[in-house]
Structures are given as C-alpha cells and as structure tokens.
C-alpha cells in the first residue's frame, strides 16, 4: 500500500498512457509529466504567495489577507484575475520587442529548469546524466532576461536595477557552483536522482544526508546564501531594491507581464530550493528511518516548503546589503570559503571512514569560517560602539 501510494503518480501516468497506441506513449508520458509538474509548481506558487503574506503578517503582529475564502486562501486567485485583466502598458520609447520578450524568456528558462528535478522516487521528467550542469546553464541565462527587461524599458531605475542584477548574479553563480560541486564529488555523478540515491540509507535512525557532514553543512549554507542572491530575495534583493530603485528592472512592467516576473521569481525560488534539497537534504528521502512509509514526494515538497519558509523568515528579518558589500561578500568571503570547502570534501573522501575525518574536516571548516569572518569584519571597520554623554 505504502509502495503504491509512493508511486501513485507514476502508476497513474502508466495507466493513462496504456490507452494510447504504442508509438504515442513516450509523447503521452512527456505531456502528462510536463502538465503535472507545471500544475504542481504553479499551485505551489499560488500557495506560497498566500503563505508568504500570511507568514510575513504573523511575524509582524498582524493577520494578513483573510477576506477571500477561508483564511484568505483565494487571495492568489483574485490577484491572478486582476493581473490577467490589467491593462498592459509599454512605454513609448521602450524597445517594444525586447520589452515583450524579456518576461517570456525568463519564464521559459525557469520552467525548463523544473524538468530535471526529482520530486519523488522514480519521479523525474528528464533524467539527464548531466542534470546539474543543465540546471546551472539555465540559471545563467536568467540573467539575460533580467538584463533585457532592464535595458529595454528605457527607465533609469530599470537600467540601474539590471546592472545590479547582472553583477550580483554572475558573482553569486561562482560560490553556488563550487558548493554544489562538493556534493557531486562525493556522489560521483551529475545526475540529480543519482545524487539523491547516494544519500539514501540510514545509520541508526539518522539519514546519510550530506548536510550532516562538515563539508555538506558548510556547502548547504553557502548554497542557501548564494541561492537567495540568485533569486534576488531579501537580503539580496538589490535589483528590485524597492526603497532605492522603485521596482528595479521591472519598474515599467504592468499587468500580466509583471505577473510573469512575479511567477518566474517564485518558480526560480522553488527550483533552486529543490536543487538544494536534492544536493544536501537527501532529496525525497525521509528524515528518520521509521518515517519511510510516508510517500517520497510528500517529503520532497515538505522540505522545499521548509526552505521557502526560511526564505520568508529571512525576508521578514534582515535589511538589505549594499552593492559593494554584496560583491565583497561573494568574492572575499563566500568564494574562499567554498574553495576551502572543496578541499575539505576531497580530504573527507580520501581519509576514509573513521572519527578522525570528522574532527579534521569540522575543524578546518569552523576555523576558516571564523578567520574569514573576523578578517572581513575587521576590513569593514564595523563594530558596536560605546557612547558618551555631555557633562
């Protein structure tokens, strides 16, 4: 029964496809898969916007939307209807074609990224051998569309936002990749389902997730920070920078095009959280050995939503960095740390089993974190101060 429930979508697809002629079946599987994944993620998007508004509200002592449907659950529907029917404005001097293409390019690229995510056991649309590479290649091309949006709008704020976005996304791609590589080094594959399988199994009741190793923990943290920067989420939301650049690169977008940017931002957040779940948090694996009866896809989405919650939590808590600090942080803190982490991963691999590698690797990670952190703070001349009073 648990087995069937776990594989329910796979079985369902198989059953539906079985009515098709033989030669059509691969196409049927593909279409059903694409529709299924898109439907799930778009529903998740709607749910998350609601969740974010409610959660943010709760962290700020207020209710959040509660007039549309039970607990305001239909709020995203109303927003959708409004966004669909809102007038679409294009500035007179804007580059009409590029202005139109930018949100589309962003959405398509991000949707393509969803294809390689293993959302459950045997549940992945495209099982590529180099799935991770494909994902990062797509991630790099989102920068293009952001820049297209900013450039074509002919708005100075958009332009500044686009410039910031390019600088930020390129910088943070490096630590993002480097921290992902350590997982690849241990798993020995670029295929995401295989990385999940490499983390399967339990010692006692605890799983073999990479996050429970020194290098994996550091990698997960670096990946999480870089992921926030890649998706332009607070505290790295400089390209939008509401208090500085009005709305950043999409200042001039209205109506449905703006909604597409909105959707794409959230889908990007999902896909990058999914990848981080896959790389460090055991993908669709259960967190404790006696919980394996719960279907794998439930675990996967529970983990993704937990990470999304952390995103929201950080958004409600932290102020934004400045552009140069953002760059310093990427190149002078995250990059060295992730390089050291690569070395630690290699050490971990070649030291073999035993408690020594735990101590050595953990020591290197902690010491390098503290040293780099102190050095960075010292260079910034930032410290709490003492104040005196007049007479």
């Amino acid at each position, binding site marked *: 029964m648990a087995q069937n429930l776990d594989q329910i979508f796979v079985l369902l697809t198989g059953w539906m496809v079985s009515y098709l002629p033989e030669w059509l079946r691969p196409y049927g599987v593909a279409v059903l898969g694409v529709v299924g994944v898109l439907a799930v993620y778009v529903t998740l998007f709607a749910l998350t916007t609601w969740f974010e508004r409610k959660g943010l509200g709760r962290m700020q002592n207020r209710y959040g939307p509660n007039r549309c449907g039970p607990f305001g659950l239909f709020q995203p529907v109303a927003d959708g209807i409004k966004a669909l029917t809102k007038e679409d404005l294009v500035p007179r001097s804007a580059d009409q074609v590029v202005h139109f293409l930018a949100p589309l390019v962003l959405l398509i690229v991000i949707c393509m990224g969803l294809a390689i995510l293993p959302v459950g056991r045997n549940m992945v649309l495209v099982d590529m051998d180099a799935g991770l590479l494909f994902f990062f290649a797509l991630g790099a091309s989102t920068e293009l569309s952001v820049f297209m949006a900013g450039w074509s709008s002919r708005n100075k704020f958009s332009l*500044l936002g686009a410039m910031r976005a390019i600088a930020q996304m390129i910088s943070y791609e490096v630590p993002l990749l480097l921290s992902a590589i350590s997982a690849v080094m241990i798993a020995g594959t670029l295929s995401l389902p295989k990385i999940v399988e490499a983390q399967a199994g339990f010692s006692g009741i605890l799983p073999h997730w990479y996050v429970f190793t020194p290098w994996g923990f550091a990698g997960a943290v670096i990946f999480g920070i870089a992921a926030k920067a890649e998706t332009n989420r607070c505290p790295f939301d400089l390209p939008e920078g509401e208090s500085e650049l009005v709305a950043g690169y999409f200042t001039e977008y209205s109506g449905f095009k703006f909604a597409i940017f909105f959707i794409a931002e959230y889908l990007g957040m999902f896909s990058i959280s999914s990848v981080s779940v896959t790389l460090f948090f055991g993908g669709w694996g259960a967190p404790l050995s006696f919980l394996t009866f719960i279907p794998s896809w439930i675990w996967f989405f529970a983990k993704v939503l937990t990470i999304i919650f952390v995103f929201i939590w950080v958004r409600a808590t932290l*102020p*934004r960095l*400045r*552009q140069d600090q953002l760059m310093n942080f990427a190149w002078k803190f995250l990059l060295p740390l992730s390089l050291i982490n690569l070395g630690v991963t290699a050490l971990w691999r070649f030291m073999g089993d035993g408690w020594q590698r735990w101590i050595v690797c953990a020591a290197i990670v902690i010491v390098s974190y503290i040293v780099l952190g102190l050095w960075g703070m010292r260079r910034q001349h930032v410290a709490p101060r003492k104040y005196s009073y007049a007479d």
Partner: protein
Amino acid sequence: MSSWTLQQSTNEHLAGWNRPQVIKPEGDGEVLEVSMGPHHPSTHGVFRMDVKLDGEKVIGLKPVFGYLHRNHEQLGEKLSYLAIMPYTDRLDYFCSLSNNWGYAMAVEKLAGLEVPERADHLRVILAELTRFQNHASWIGFLAQEMGASGTPLMYAFREREKILDLFEELTGSRMMCNYMRFGGCRVDPTAEWLSETRKVVQGLHKFVDEFENLLTGNEILMSRTQGVGVLSHDLAVNASVSGPMARASGVNYDIRKVDHYGIYDRFNFRVPLGEHGDIYDRYMVRVLEIRESLSILEQALKSVPGGPILDPKAKSRGIRPKAGEAYGRIEAPKGELGFYLISDGAGSPYRYRIRPPSFINLTVLEDMCLGHNVADAILILGSVDIVLGEVDR
C-alpha cells in the same frame, strides 16, 4: 514687481571650506542624471533629489523642495493668533505637540505670559512622549529604507499607537492635537489618564530593549550605517544643523539644556553625543535619547502638581500682543524648532515665521552624500529625519 535673470548654480566660484566639494566622474565621464522623487518610495513624501551618478556613485546631488509648500507663513499672517495653533499641528505631522509648544512659547514671549506649574509638567510629558514616538518611528523607517520589509516599522508603530491613544484620550485627536494654549494647556487630564500614561511609559522600556536587541547589533545594519554620511562637527555648526543630527556629530547643543525653557531644569537627563557623525551615530544618539526621554517622563509623571492649567490672566481668544517681536524656540524631536513673530498690535501677527529644523538640516545633504552609493544616499536622507510638512511648510 521687477524680475531678475536667475544666477545659475555654480559652486566653483565660491571656494569656501564649507561648500560641497566637486567630484569629477571617472573614466570616460558619462554621467547618469536621475531625478529621485517627488514620487519615490523612500523620500519621505514629496521630496526630490536631482542626483548625478557615475556608475552608482553619487557625484552631485541637489535637493528640490516645495512640493508640499502649503503657505503656512502667509496663512498665519491672515489668521488670529489662536487660529494658527491648529496649523502648527500640520507642520511636522509626527510631532504636533512639540510644534504647539514652540508656537505657544513664542506667543508667550511676545505677550509676556506665565505658564502654571501643572501645565508645564504636562507640556514636558507630552513633548517627551512625542519625541519617543517620533524617534521610534524614525528607526523603523530607517530600517525600512535598508529594505527590512517593514518589520521594525510595524513594531515601532505598535508602540506609537499606544501613545496616540493617550493623545486621543487627552486632546481628542490622534495626530492633530491642538492642545497647547497661550499660558497653559487646553484640557485638564484626569488622574486616570496620568496613571494610564505611567503604565504605558513602563511598557516602553521593554519595547526599547527589544527593539535594540533586534537592530543595534545587526551586522548588516552596522555595515550599512557605520562610516556612511559623515558630517564633521565644524560643518554641522556652520550649517546650522540642530537636534539629534548635530549631536551625532559631537555638537553638544541641546536647547533643553541651553535655554532652560519649560521646567527641564528640574529633571535629571543626559545628552548623548556621537563621535563619528555617521548614520550609526545618528541612530544610536536617538536610541539613547529616547531612553533619556523615558527617564524624564518618569520623573515628570511622579511630580505632576495640582492647580490650574491655564494662566488666569491669559486670554487665548482675541489675544492682541503689543507691537514688537519675539523669537521662541524649543528642542523638537528633529532639532531646533523656532517661531519668529512680529506683532503690530493687531489680532494677527504681522510676520509669522517658522524655523523648520529638518529643512535646514538638509543643507548638508549634498556634502554627506557625495562619493557614496545611491543606496547610501537614500539612507543618508532618511537619517536626517525629514518631514515634508515642515521642510516645505
């Protein structure tokens, strides 16, 4: 009236030490001119900055005023002395009670009126409550400008609502209190109101601690504010910068201590001073200042005497001071708030002038912003603590 050809703005011909330096763009010298405002999320209303950018670096900045110029001064010259009082509420709409006090004091100076003990205590209590809510909201807005999604602002406004409830109970209005009168105050507070105020003040201590725990030690806040927007002591004095902003630059000048107005002499409080003159100092000076305000409030609430709240000789309605002039000033939350009145013996002032602290504090905005980022310019503007009702009047 004759007209003149306006002299164009050039800073070079006047190479005084107290002029903003001139920064030349690097590289090929392409300059991006951005007009921030009058509609911009972080300009505190309808303020505009014409910014010249080299990349993201600010190499020139001209503030543009007047988008909320509501002609307070001219209206004041048409109205009776008492009818001006509600207009002062709308100057700095965060701190209506401080404005009331400043204006009432100027008229009292002009007409030679005394204020009873009880009214003086009440004025201190209300002015310090006003200072508290102004500074607390200011900290919230500063965090908002740093991009903190409004959480600190929500917490600050939660406390502000409690203080506004007190104001409303006493004066009948949340924001536009119109409470002070020449020679005293308008309504006598009940004992319940005073004990309720004591309770609220008790709770505010906890709030300040909580707020500081959230913000003061935050690394992002520190790295965003320390060393940014530095204002030197000498320039601050020369440019007539006043209030917490001047004190953050180390200028030991608190009108409560200097002029001994009201009954501030009787209370123990200290004046915090900054050393660096950057945004962090402005932030910390305000935090320490609201702690001192709480101490003043506690002392004042302990010692509220009985008696009348209005000078029996004073008549607010139809007051006609003798010909002459007077300049009265108080330490408003934003700095030195002065009222200059010239009377020609009529029922309305011949000249009614407001010395707005936040307007004059903006004099040094360009000096502070040059060489910094756009994001910093927004923060520096926020750190001045402007309210457009007062800047443009």
